[in-house]
């Protein structure tokens, strides 16, 4: 069976996989994970063409991959995964995105939803007061001098812990322990540092959030227990990234990479795919800056987690203090990793843009705490329905360079979402469903209405069905802080 998405022909492989045959200047084929309905949603979207574009880049190894939450991005599609040979391949800021190490952290409390409901308003208000959100949010209590900022860029979440924001144990439950050692603050421009100096510990706006929820369903009880996700346990999701510093690092690098693509004679189907050989001076400079921005994001989520714990403690006392980090994942990042390619281990530069690392049980990069379990994968949905916790699998490691999806993916434009919400009181609707929302302005809430997003359950079912992730628990929201 075959179908077309826009002008691109795709062939159905099975219930969860679609192949984009190699054509034109493609160096490899495309592989899209989706069911029939998600594939139909892509009709008219440029995302499939973007998979084709990525397949043109030099040194790509294996297929250009798209996850079931794929949608139109800049250069690479959101939900895209692409691996490049370390010697012959490229690194592309468009394969990471503007919000470098945008990611998700999940905290679990020892509190039960029944005990939290009566004081939910107090908790949501405390979170809203203690974690700045919205446009231009900054912290008056955390303004970094240049030396401190460089230290944060170098050490990420570990820097935050040394400053008293959290505990050493938090670091064990993070991708890369919250510190990427390739970071080089000297590669980060003064302009980027200026944009980031007052934003550490802030959520930002758009689709970023802090969300109180509870474990509503468990698909693998023993694994959920290991993660501290007992039935009815109250949780806190934090979704944010590297804020203005990361945006500026990406922006600075585009200028360099556009020139580099000319210099190294890399033909680009889209200027936003600009890139440089991994081993070039331009590639190395971006690598140092990108890793530093990723560390900023880890530190950002660490500081917010500290304040979330403080808010929980203010409302619930000692129980709030016992809140632990379930895991923290990046979903906009590029990393050097070893993967089996045609039976041989090979060092690759894996770009994940709107995709989550999903390493299997036994992978040496996992903390001992998770090594027999596999890596936790956190998949937030919209603010009205549910989110998921999965585990990484051998299937993901074999087929997607150890990657899984990252979220629901938008289906309505912001403009259309606002039109849909115009005559409604979305805050009141959600409150009637038992979900309290605090937001800096109504426009953000209207743009983020639940129906603006695909049903994340469909996305996760594809991932689970295809074997590139394994469902552990579903979490339902009860309180949301939006920027």
């Amino acid at each position, binding site marked *: 069976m075959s179908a077309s998405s826009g002008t691109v022909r795709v062939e159905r492989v099975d219930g969860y996989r679609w192949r984009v045959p190699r054509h034109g200047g493609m160096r490899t084929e495309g592989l899209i994970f989706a069911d029939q309905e998600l594939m139909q949603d892509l009709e008219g979207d440029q995302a499939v063409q973007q998979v084709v574009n990525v397949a043109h880049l030099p040194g790509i190894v294996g297929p250009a991959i798209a996850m079931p939450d794929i949608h139109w991005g*800049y250069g690479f599609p959101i939900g895209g995964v692409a691996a490049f040979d370390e010697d012959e391949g490229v690194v592309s800021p468009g394969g990471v995105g503007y919000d470098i190490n945008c990611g998700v952290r999940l905290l679990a409390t020892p509190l039960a939803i029944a005990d939290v409901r009566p004081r939910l308003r107090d908790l949501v208000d405390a979170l809203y007061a203690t974690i700045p959100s919205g446009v*231009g949010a900054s912290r008056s209590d955390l303004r970094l001098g240049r030396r401190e900022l460089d230290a944060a860029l170098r050490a990420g979440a570990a820097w935050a812990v040394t400053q008293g924001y959290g505990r050493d144990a938090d670091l064990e439950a993070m991708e890369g322990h919250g510190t990427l050692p390739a970071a080089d603050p000297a590669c980060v421009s003064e302009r980027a540092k200026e*944009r980031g100096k007052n934003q550490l510990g802030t959520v930002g706006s758009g689709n970023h959030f802090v969300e109180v929820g509870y474990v509503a369903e468990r698909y693998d009880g023993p694994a959920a227990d290991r993660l501290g996700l007992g039935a009815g346990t109250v949780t806190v999701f934090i979704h944010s990234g590297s804020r203005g510093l990361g945006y500026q690092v990406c*922006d600075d690098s585009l200028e360099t990479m556009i020139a580099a693509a000319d210099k190294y004679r890399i033909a680009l189907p*889209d200027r936003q795919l600009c890139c440089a050989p991994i081993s070039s001076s331009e590639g190395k400079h971006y690598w140092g800056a990108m890793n530093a921005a990723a560390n900023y994001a880890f530190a950002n989520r660490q500081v917010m987690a500290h304040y979330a714990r403080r808010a929980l403690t203010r409302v619930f006392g000692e129980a709030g203090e016992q809140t632990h980090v379930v895991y923290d994942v990046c979903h906009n990042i590029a990393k050097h990793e070893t993967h089996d390619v045609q039976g041989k281990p090979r060092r690759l530069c894996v770009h994940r843009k709107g995709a989550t690392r999903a390493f299997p049980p036994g992978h040496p990069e996992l903390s001992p705490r998770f090594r027999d379990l596999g890596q936790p994968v956190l998949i937030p949905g919209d603010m009205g329905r549910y989110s998921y916790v999965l585990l990484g699998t051998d299937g993901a490691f074999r087929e997607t360079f150890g990657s899984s999806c990252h979220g629901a993916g938008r289906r309505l434009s912001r403009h259309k979402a606002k039109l849909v919400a115009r005559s409604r009181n979305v805050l009141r609707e959600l409150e009637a469903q038992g979900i309290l929302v605090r937001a800096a302005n109504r426009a953000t809430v209207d743009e983020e209405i639940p129906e603006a997003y695909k049903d994340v359950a469909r996305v996760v079912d594809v991932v689970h069905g295809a074997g590139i992730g394994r469902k552990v628990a579903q979490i339902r929201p009860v309180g949301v802080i939006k920027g």
Partner: protein
Amino acid sequence: MTPYRFVPHTADIAVELVAPDEGGLRAAGLDALRELLVGASPVRALEERPIEARGKDPVERLVRYLEEALYLYDAERFVPARAGPAGVLGEPFDPARHTAAREVKAVTYHGAAVHRNDRGLSATLIFDV
């Protein structure tokens, strides 16, 4: 008012600009950016911040101009009022008079294009929000 028009885009915000020349495109793009950043808040042209016109083609010059204006807003809270002869005219952000409407991460190159037609130039741009 210089002409700009927001057009549908699933994840972010796209704009179409029409102007007789490159300077006009920059002015139209700046008006669009100002609307995204502070909505209909009135902004006074009290001072000019210089922006060097750089880039090897009209697309690069347009994107970089708007990126500079965005940087001035994000890092220095300088709100753009309109394009000036050597940069951007505007004033410092004043929470009493300006509404911070939306965070704009970047002005992107994705799908960015400038076309010449019989009335001058038209351009399309996407803002990452």
